[in-house]
């Protein structure tokens, strides 16, 4: 017997006689209207910075966040119009980890945002890039459109493709490991800006 067969045989023996099938009740909320103010409230509560601007103002918003001369890394299909002339952008053509870590920031789009929980989700699409891109720089600017915002977690899961590498981000990196108080800033980006477009 292989270990695999042994384990499966043990589990089958443990379940004999077969338990009655269980149907999970799903009476929790799914349908709910999207409340953008709630998204902003939740994100602010996590000490993320939220900017609500129209799309043509994205570059100016980025310019106000980053000092002139800053270097950012960006995914290959980030809209060029989002980048101000004041920063140097390195598009990710397989940049090495050291180069990404040395950047002053990263700018990405997102796939979905959840108002109830203040979460943005990246799925590795070409305007969001590899996971490492949004991980190593200390500052992350994430641009999201209103049409990408859903009300709750069930709505978010139904929009996502499971096979993509997914990163759910709810505020800047934080820890509760010291006396159970949330402290911002451990290994991920310590500063998170959300630019919310109409």
């Amino acid at each position, binding site marked *: 017997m292989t*270990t695999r067969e042994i384990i499966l045989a043990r589990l089958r023996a443990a379940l004999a006689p077969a338990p009655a099938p269980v149907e999970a009740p799903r*009476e929790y909320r799914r349908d709910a209207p999207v409340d953008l103010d709630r998204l902003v409230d939740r994100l602010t509560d996590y000490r993320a910075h939220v900017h609500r601007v129209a799309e043509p103002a994205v570059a100016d918003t980025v310019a106000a966040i980053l000092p002139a001369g800053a270097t950012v890394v960006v995914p290959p299909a980030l809209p060029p119009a989002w980048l101000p002339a004041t920063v140097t952008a390195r598009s990710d053509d397989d940049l090495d980890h050291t180069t990404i*870590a040395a950047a002053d920031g990263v700018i990405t789009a997102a796939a979905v945002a959840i108002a109830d929980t203040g*979460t943005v989700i990246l799925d590795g699409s070409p305007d969001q890039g590899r996971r*490492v891109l949004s991980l190593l720089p200390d500052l992350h600017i994430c641009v999201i459109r209103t049409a990408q915002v859903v009300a709750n977690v069930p709505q978010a899961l139904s929009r996502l493709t499971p*096979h993509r*590498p*997914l990163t*759910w981000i709810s505020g800047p*990196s934080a820890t509760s490991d010291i006396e159970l108080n949330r402290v911002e800033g451990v290994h991920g980006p310590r500063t998170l800006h959300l630019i919310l477009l109409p």
Partner: protein
Amino acid sequence: MSRTFLGMPTTAPKGVGHLRGAEPFPAAARRALSDAQLRRNLGHATATIRAKSGAVVAEVPDWEQLRAAGSAIKADAMARLPELLEQLEQRVTDAGGVVHWAADANEANAIVVDLVRATGSDRVIKVKSMVTQEIGLNEALEAAGIAPVETDLAELIVQLGEDRPSHILVPAIHRNRAEIREIFLRAMPGVDPGLTDEPAVLAAAARRFLRQTFLSTPVAVSGANFAVAETGTLAVVESEGNGRMCLTLPRTLITVMGVEKVVPTWRDLEVFLQLLPRASTGERMNPYTSMWTGVSPGDGPQEFHLVLLDNGRSAVLADEVGRQALHCIRCSACLNVCPVYERTGGHAYGSVYPGPIGAVLSPQLTGVADNASLPYASSLCGACYDACPVKINIPELLVHLRDQAPHPRGESAAMAAAAYAMDHPALYAAAQRATRLSRLTGRRGRGLPPPLSGWTADRDLPEPPAQTFRQWWASR
């Protein structure tokens, strides 16, 4: 062992891992109870988390519906465990991962050691995982000349402090900021000698210390919070970003998971991702959750190994009442509301799984004889059941296990009484007053009055604190 027995449900082996304490609960608890600093740290931390969690649970109008769904999904998963694991294996393999099966801790450790050796690295980065503590993976790696680096802040505190974890979620919950500063100053290479005990400064020190290690280590070991059979997707829920580092930067990723972590469908995550953060850290959502399916070409580890571990779980599954302990999503809510845990801390439970869930899970994984006192480490007050996001009926399980525990009659009754008293301030206060009185009158020993005397007849009662439990309870 004959072939017939190989396929029968089996408990976790002795001599490896951390499911059995060096001494029974009462002896360990006695020492913990006399540590005033420990009790202060625990009291402060659990009170903080109870308040936070209570507030974010209260704002969810369908919390009870979510709990009901979570409980039923887990029951369904356990009822179909063999087929779901086969499905998971197929999906992970289809997506470019390699699945390994480990019957016990020794097999899992050997698999991981071999996989790390194959990478040529003498170091692995680790993201906090209960299961790798359960199997004693770090010891196995060290014995093979491989250095495991814990990257979770609390695990790092425990590792640098040469300490043991005492809480599922916050393994260093027994340490306050001043103690953490001292540990860092003593044991963290290259630390700034001017380090203060500001939590943000301590966190920044860990960031600096680990950054180069993250960037230069080619292999990581993780656990998993959930594994979706339908899609082959693994999920890790975390806060600091050390999980993302481990799951993203290395060339090779090895994930070790207990077989009970599998859930049937993608959609099931919508239930658990609502329950877990609110019940555990008291947040609407934890800062980071990573999900991956096999290997993503050009993004993250290009080699992925999933180790599926039994190590006593089949024995738990074999008990119709006991198997609900496998529903646990390791949120630690039951620890934070438990009056016994709050007083004794996690070390007293011996196993890596402390608190109410540990009191029912550890004895089942090892066989009740090896953790016979744990089912008595509770007052049966029911707070754990109310707090549990997947509605595990821990009091029912405790009673069920007490029936099986070959425990000295006098001691078991007395332990249950002592635990009961910890939850009933008036009784405990009376017992403590009696104890103080007995000390004042100079009588020998520091025993408790009946019925608690059975517990203390052959051992000293913890030094009564200057402040009685009841005064302290009232002043929290």
